[in-house]
């Protein structure tokens, strides 16, 4: 039997006491539900169980998804659809109005294109560096380490921290009189860096901080992938006298490839949406040097004085289509892996 093992019954007395009112409530609920079952049958009960989730899901996920398109084709600052006027493709046209398509600053919505550019470079660099570090971490954690779960926990720790906390921790460390400058000072660097006011350093900081916060998650998935590679393959390679480097390139990497692909796509999807920690760390600045797409949408839709929900919706749909493509790739990979698993 694959059913989960039962919990010990000695500790269940207190639990039973705590559960008593809940159980009474459930028995109370059962009475009308038996009536419902009688009238609708078992199929009707399936609908009953599914209904709350699908209702909430429909109102707060599906409906917004649909009316987002309507929004993107209306203008004005009002939020109620009825008060908005239809403008057709004007918002999209506005996003794409540029004098010179090679220079984002010549566009009507230069902030949008700046955000696109920033996000693009952020995604490329962050994902590449993060996957590399995650892979190295996973490979090291997969070695014959004492207390592996401790080391795994070390790298995983920041993953659970809230983005706001992450942003604040690093804002504190990276400030002019912060820990990092102190450490550099100890090594003899006299002039303190202005990490969060220099355009390049700030951009680098957002990449570094987001890698710090999320790398452990990807390392964990890669580690699971590494541990799923059968040990006897390595033993066979050892028997054949294969060199370690060759083992890595010819056994580890090919067998890890499906996991690696999933991790890359997942990281891409997340990186495109980067917002929280950057917003707290830099607020998009200095200037627009760390203004990323989600912040652009948020500010265009809600925060700025000249808010334009229609424009924000149009931008979000453009971003959404990128995510859809990435998600489809991911599902495609997942399907392929599943088929492979079946052989």
């Amino acid at each position, binding site marked *: 039997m694959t059913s989960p*093992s*039962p919990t010990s*019954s000695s500790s269940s007395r207190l639990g039973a006491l705590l559960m008593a009112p809940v159980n009474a409530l459930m028995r109370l609920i059962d009475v009308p539900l038996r009536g419902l079952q009688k009238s609708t049958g078992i199929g009707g009960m399936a609908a009953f169980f599914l209904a709350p989730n699908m209702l909430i899901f429909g109102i707060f996920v599906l409906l917004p998804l649909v009316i987002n398109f309507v929004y993107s084709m209306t203008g004005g600052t009002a939020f109620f659809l009825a008060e908005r006027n239809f403008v057709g493709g004007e918002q999209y046209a506005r996003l794409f109005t540029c004098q010179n398509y090679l220079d984002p600053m010549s566009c009507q919505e230069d902030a949008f294109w700046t955000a696109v550019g920033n996000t693009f470079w952020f995604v490329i660099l962050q994902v590449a560096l993060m996957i590399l570090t995650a892979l190295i971490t996973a490979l090291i954690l997969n070695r014959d380490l004492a207390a592996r779960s401790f080391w795994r926990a070390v790298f995983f720790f920041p993953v659970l921290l809230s983005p706001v906390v992450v942003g604040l921790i690093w804002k504190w460390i990276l400030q002019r009189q912060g820990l990092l400058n102190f450490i550099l000072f100890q090594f003899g660097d006299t002039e303190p860096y202005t990490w969060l006011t220099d355009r390049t350093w700030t951009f680098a900081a957002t990449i570094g901080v987001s890698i710090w916060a999320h790398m452990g998650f990807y390392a964990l998935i890669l580690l699971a992938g590494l541990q799923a590679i059968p040990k006897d393959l390595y033993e066979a390679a050892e028997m054949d006298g294969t060199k370690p480097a060759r083992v890595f390139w010819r056994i580890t990497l090919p067998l890890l490839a499906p996991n690696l692909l999933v991790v890359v796509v997942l990281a891409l999807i997340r990186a495109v949406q980067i917002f929280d920690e950057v917003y707290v760390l830099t607020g998009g600045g200095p200037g627009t040097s760390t203004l990323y797409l989600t912040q652009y949408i948020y500010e265009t839709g809600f925060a700025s004085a000249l808010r334009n929900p229609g424009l924000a919706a149009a931008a979000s749909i453009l971003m959404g289509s990128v995510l859809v493509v990435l998600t489809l790739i991911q599902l495609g990979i997942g399907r392929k892996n599943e088929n492979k698993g079946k052989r």
Partner: protein
Amino acid sequence: MGEIKLTDVKKSYGAVDVLKDINLHINDGEFVVFVGPSGCGKSTLLRTIAGLEKVTGGEIEIDGKRVNEVTAADRGLAMVFQSYALYPHMSVRQNLAFGLENSNMPKPEIAERIQEAARMLEIEPYLERRPGQLSGGQRQRVAIGRAIVRRPTAFLLDEPLSNLDAELRVSTRAELAALHARIGSTMIYVTHDQVEAMTLAHRIVVMRAGRIEQVGTPLELYNTPANRFVAGFIGAPHMNFLSGEVQEVETGSVTLVIGGGHRLTVPLADHKLRGHKLKAGEKLTVGIRPQHITLENNPGSLPVKVRLVEALGSETVIHADLNGEKLLAVVQGQKQIVPGDEVHFSLAGAPLHLFDQNGLRVKGA
């Protein structure tokens, strides 16, 4: 109390017909076994009786009442599942009580029934344990106990012994028979094991591909199988089948030519051959149970070539070859035979079964 009647019961999943016009009458107190190869629909039939599956056509009656629309809970039946389906998070006692609590039975009566069932099944020491802490045999008893406490009009058992090891299966089988004798309720038992069917059943229902092939007592099925399928399914090792051709029809017997030109005379009990008018030249199949073959060289015995000998001590199984057709004989005692030997199989006095080209039994044979 416990009479079940099925009339033209049909069940299909989309275009696939799983049950085709099942007609069956089960009497109160009867022990009926559904047997057949896997996928024959026997479990589905049991589940339709239980009410866990809805029929697509026909009628199910329990004690004269149509129950097609009655839910599983309200049919008054209890079921023992192949995996036992004990609730892993409840103690044995809670497992037994669950169904009774659901029908709002007073607590003292629940306790009394559990006590009684536990005593009957000798599971009293385990009442406070969880199913995960029990052995396979103990779980099996609990599963039966859960059915017993309900005092159902009929017990439905879906391959209840298939998860036990061979030894335990034999002893539990005997206990089940004793249990039935004691409780006296109707039991419907599904198995793919013909030995279980033979040892337990009052009546066996042999099924294949969604149809009932034959219903009868174990010996009826053994002695007069209605068709080639039943003949091959009941009895171990399987019945031998030789193809033959009618040469001569006489009063009281028919003479066939089988492989290699050997003549075989089969006595016919019914002189008039009501079901069949055999004609010379007609192709038939002769069935001989391996146990009925003897190693004697007398007129009419068949010279065969031995392919394999399995000496089991008390008996010897001989795999032989008669002109390309396989023949199996189970003979008493130990024989000095090795593969490659030529021996004679005697069918003298053996009950012979005749099947026509559609596989149906030739009436009278």
